[in-house]
């Protein structure tokens, strides 16, 4: 396995590379050394705008710049880019369909010590409800680079969710291709499907490996694009495996779990079990301790898969009666 890298660090490099396109601008609100937009700022100081600690203003400025043909990328912690600026994003970016990319780093519990004020567990939900918004949450550094290239090419508002913690690369293989809105089958399987995003993809893969040893065959889908969601892959999983487990570093209300459930209930109802933060706020601790406390680990996934399998079998019994 290659060296671990945080998605925000991979992002910084990717954005700096994209800077070859002179239309691309980066805006930040005093946290560029944390969001890593500073990499772009160093290469292209004349296309980097630090607005100070004024996130809502930053989104408005980006909207204005975008009307002139620029492609602004705005940056802060997820709590402040997506969280604080929801209404600016909705009305000044998405409604006029402007080509602005909103980046939220330090998303989720893995922020660690800073605690609940900074641990955004709602951003997927709030961004997903905005009409026309693309919502992407890559799982590792390699996928992050692909995601950045893809959202830069997409014409319209996008939200990119990134994390603080260093993660193993699990996508960087030759046959790996990234397409917005297309889930990646990380591992095939027939008894159950885990649909995961972000750092839960790594946990899901580990869980699937362990389950495999117990003779349980689990499919792992990496749903890097939460909106538009890959309906086809979800329905296929529902049909072929009969039960779905979602895993995300986000509230189970409104995020990936909700998006998958909506699709499944509408097209091919099977049980869906949602693993995530259970409608709570975070706390202090290091990333590992917190993920463990909230059950967002391979063991947590395994438990959820077993719960899912019991439910699937129960339904089978009921239907056979």
């Amino acid at each position: 396995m290659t060296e671990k890298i945080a998605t925000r660090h991979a992002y910084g490099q990717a954005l700096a590379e994209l800077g070859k396109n002179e239309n691309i601008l980066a805006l930040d609100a005093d946290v560029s050394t944390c969001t890593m937009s500073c990499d772009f700022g160093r290469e292209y100081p004349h296309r980097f705008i630090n607005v100070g600690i004024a996130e809502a203003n930053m989104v408005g400025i980006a909207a204005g710049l975008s009307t002139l043909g620029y492609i602004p990328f705005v940056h802060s912690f997820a709590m402040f880019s997506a969280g604080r600026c929801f209404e600016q994003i909705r009305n000044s970016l998405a409604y006029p369909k402007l080509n602005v990319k909103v980046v939220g780093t330090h998303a989720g519990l893995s922020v660690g010590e800073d605690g609940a004020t900074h641990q955004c567990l709602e951003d997927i939900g709030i961004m997903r409800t905005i009409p026309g918004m693309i919502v992407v949450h890559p799982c590792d550094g390699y996928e992050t680079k692909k995601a950045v290239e893809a959202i830069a090419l997409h014409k319209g508002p996008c939200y990119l969710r990134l994390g603080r913690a260093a993660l193993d690369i699990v996508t960087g293989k030759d046959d790996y291709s990234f397409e917005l809105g297309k889930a990646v089958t990380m591992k095939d399987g027939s008894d159950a499907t885990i649909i995961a995003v972000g750092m839960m993809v790594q946990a899901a893969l580990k869980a699937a490996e362990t389950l495999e040893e117990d003779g349980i065959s689990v499919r792992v889908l990496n749903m890097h694009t939460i909106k538009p969601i890959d309906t086809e892959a979800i329905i296929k999983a529902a049909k072929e495996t009969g039960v779905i487990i979602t895993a995300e570093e986000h509230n189970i209300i409104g995020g990936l779990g909700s998006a998958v459930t909506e699709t499944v209930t509408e097209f091919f109802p099977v049980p869906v079990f949602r693993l995530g933060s259970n409608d709570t706020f975070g706390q202090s601790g290091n990333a590992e301790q917190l993920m463990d406390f909230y059950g967002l680990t391979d063991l947590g996934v395994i438990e959820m898969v077993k719960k899912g399998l019991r439910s699937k079998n129960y339904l089978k019994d009921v239907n056979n009666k």
Partner: protein
Amino acid sequence: MTIQALKQQALEVRKTLLSMIYQAKTGHTGGALSSTDLITALYFEVMHIDPSNPKWEGRDYFILSKGHSVEGYLSALAKRGFFDESLLSTFCQYKSPLIGHPNNKIPGIEMNTGALGHGLSISVGMAIGLKKDKKPNRVFTLMGDGELAEGSVWEAAMAASHYKLDNLIAIVDRNHLQISGSTEDVMGLEPLRERWESFGWQVEEIDGNSMLEVVNALKAAPFKEHKPSLIIANTTKGKGVKEMEDIPSWHHGVPNQHLYEQAMLDFESMEKELQNV
């Protein structure tokens, strides 16, 4: 307390907050040190509070709008007797109630802060409520200077003078730095005094690391009837640890063992000096 004793107390707070950050291996060192004298004066001399009864009706309210300076705040609260000082060593650790930003589960803390730009609005709400109830309690708020770029600060500033909140005393920790550098390079604040004055505030400017000036200004506040008061407290970010003073990266830098031990020795010699005066 005498100014001498308050200076001594501030040194104790500085030592403790640095230990907390050193132990936790995380924290916002620079802004905690710049605001130590202000927080010490508020808690040990100026505010009407009762540590044995944190929710005492007659208390003055304090909102740490720059919530990242939580280390000094917690140290002062513990030393003033709001909770056991031994708890401080658990700062930021897993399962500790002392998380990385203030929260109202801790005795003495009124409000959860850490997201910048909220504190002044919250304080305006408290001040309006206290006036409605015809109570004499005052509301103190401490903001960062970088924080002043948030538009919500100015919405609150406007509301405070509109509602003639002379029970509201806001303090700006004017250390001239934020994460990405000097406030004037990032998003210029000057002319700061005139800006606040034009928003209808009565403004005093002091050396925010001079205990005498801090105490005098805070005791003189509110400065004028029917007007909210603002204290521009000129401070040095990282105050008290020479290696950290005025250096942006110490915003959230954590000292290594050598620097930590050196800083503690320096604090001790400062204390000795104080005692010899």
